[in-house]
């Protein structure tokens, strides 16, 4: 009950700050200081968005972007999660991969787009690989930290109760590291989402939200760009708050393994 009330209140507050920002934008757009083509009013943007949703093009663009980002993200989890675990459990693996991750993680995925285009051409392969590159390292890095932070007393207790390596892994280490693993997924998705839009701008041929934005500049369609941005922001928000937020509430918050911010 109180939890629900808190959530409603935080939603109202979030809505309010969005509303204030939108009102400010609208005031600037209507002031006549800038040409209307470059700074379309909110009603124009909304009607463009509705048109693009109605004829299905926006859904199709969003679908392609989601397909690419999820493909790359899932691949990154499949590789990054076991890699992080192996690094935490075997010093040799850690010694080999940790410097590699430290060196590669800070390189923005954007900087690799031209190179990947040379190697893999224009299309899905390049965009998925950019997403994969952006997401794998935070996934591996956080998993590594998580496994190392598993409380040794849990391992002792489980060992005393006769847990073998297999049970220790699935029933103690993975759940014990879960707060970090979920953080890793969040960071990985965030970077993947940023990466996919960038990659689509340059390396996608005719579909995707990033491509829409880049293509619209040819025709000075600022309203299309902004409509696509709204969709990008919305999907990103849904994943961050709803998908990962629910995952966190259903697991580590329910278990009391992370503190919940109040208010």
């Amino acid at each position, binding site marked *: 009950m109180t939890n629900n009330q808190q959530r409603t209140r935080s939603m109202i507050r979030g809505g309010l700050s969005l509303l204030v920002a939108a009102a400010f934008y609208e005031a600037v757009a209507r002031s006549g200081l800038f040409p209307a083509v470059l700074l379309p009013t909110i009603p124009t943007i909304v009607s463009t968005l509705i048109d693009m949703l109605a004829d299905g093009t926006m859904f199709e663009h969003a679908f392609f972007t989601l397909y690419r980002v999820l493909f790359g993200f899932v691949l990154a989890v499949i590789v990054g999660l076991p890699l992080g675990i192996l690094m935490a459990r075997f010093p040799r693996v850690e010694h080999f991969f940790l410097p590699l991750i430290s060196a590669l993680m800070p390189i923005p995925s954007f900087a690799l787009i031209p190179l990947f285009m040379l190697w893999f051409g224009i299309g899905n392969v390049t965009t998925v690989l950019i997403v994969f590159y952006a997401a794998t390292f935070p996934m591996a890095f956080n998993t590594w930290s998580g496994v190392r932070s598993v*409380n040794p*007393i*849990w391992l*002792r*207790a*489980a*060992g*005393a*109760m*006769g*847990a*073998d390596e297999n*049970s220790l892994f699935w*029933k*103690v280490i993975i*759940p*014990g590291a*879960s707060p970090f693993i979920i953080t890793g997924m969040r960071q990985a998705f965030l970077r993947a989402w940023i990466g996919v839009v960038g990659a689509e701008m340059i390396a996608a041929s005719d579909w995707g939200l990033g491509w829409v934005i880049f293509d619209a500049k040819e025709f000075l369609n600022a309203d299309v760009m902004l409509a696509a941005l709204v969709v990008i922001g919305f999907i990103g928000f849904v994943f961050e708050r709803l998908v990962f937020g629910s995952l966190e509430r259903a*697991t580590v918050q*329910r*278990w*009391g*393994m992370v503190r919940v911010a109040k208010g």
Partner: protein
Amino acid sequence: MQPIAIRDVSLNYDTPGGKVQGVTNVSIDIDASEFVCIVGPSGCGKSTLLNIIAGFLAPATGQISIGGKPVTGHGMDRGVVFQDFAQLFPWRTALGNVSFGLEMKGVANPERDRIAREQLRLVKLEKFTDSFPHHLSGGMQQRVAIARALAYNPSVLLMDEPFAALDAMTRDDMQRLLADVWKETRKTVIYVTHNVAEAVYLADRVVVMSAHPGTVKTVMKIDLPRPRDPLSVEFLDCQKELMGHLGHNTNGAAH
């Protein structure tokens, strides 16, 4: 319910600052179903000894056998309860925690659930089977830990100051509960404590350890009838005698 034989057990820790004595030449014989408390000054090696018996540490010399079988590592003939409340798995409910050892043993579900519930009833937590540890008080968490250590039916229960972090009133309740649980299950118990009254209340025999070197100083038998009355003259006499062995001022204040 197995007897335990501890023979000439020693262990030193290697630290950057040199060798640190853990325990030196400890020998104790414990009968089946006996409740033995280990007391001694801080740093004398009580936890070290318990960890050796539990199989978490291998002794440098000497050996330990439980029911005639030598101890080589941890095993399901022993249940362990630590002082730290964090020993429970936060991602499992009380019932899930208690079921863990049974899962490892391969006990299938209707049976596993039944045994785990039974154990939680033993520690008076049947109403909290579905609670996660972070919703339980410290005392309740330690009771879950005791139920968890008993669930897979080890013959020996090893406890390292399980109630030390609780307030005095809760600790009294927990001691009474543990005495009841022991009476019902008849496990062989080795119980480490700092608390003289606790040792006199619970133990059949109290092993007094001395520091430097960490070894057995004396063993004191507590012959009081159970359930024990901590306010009786005999109880207080035992307490005084034990404090004497520990080198405390016998007519002075308890700690």
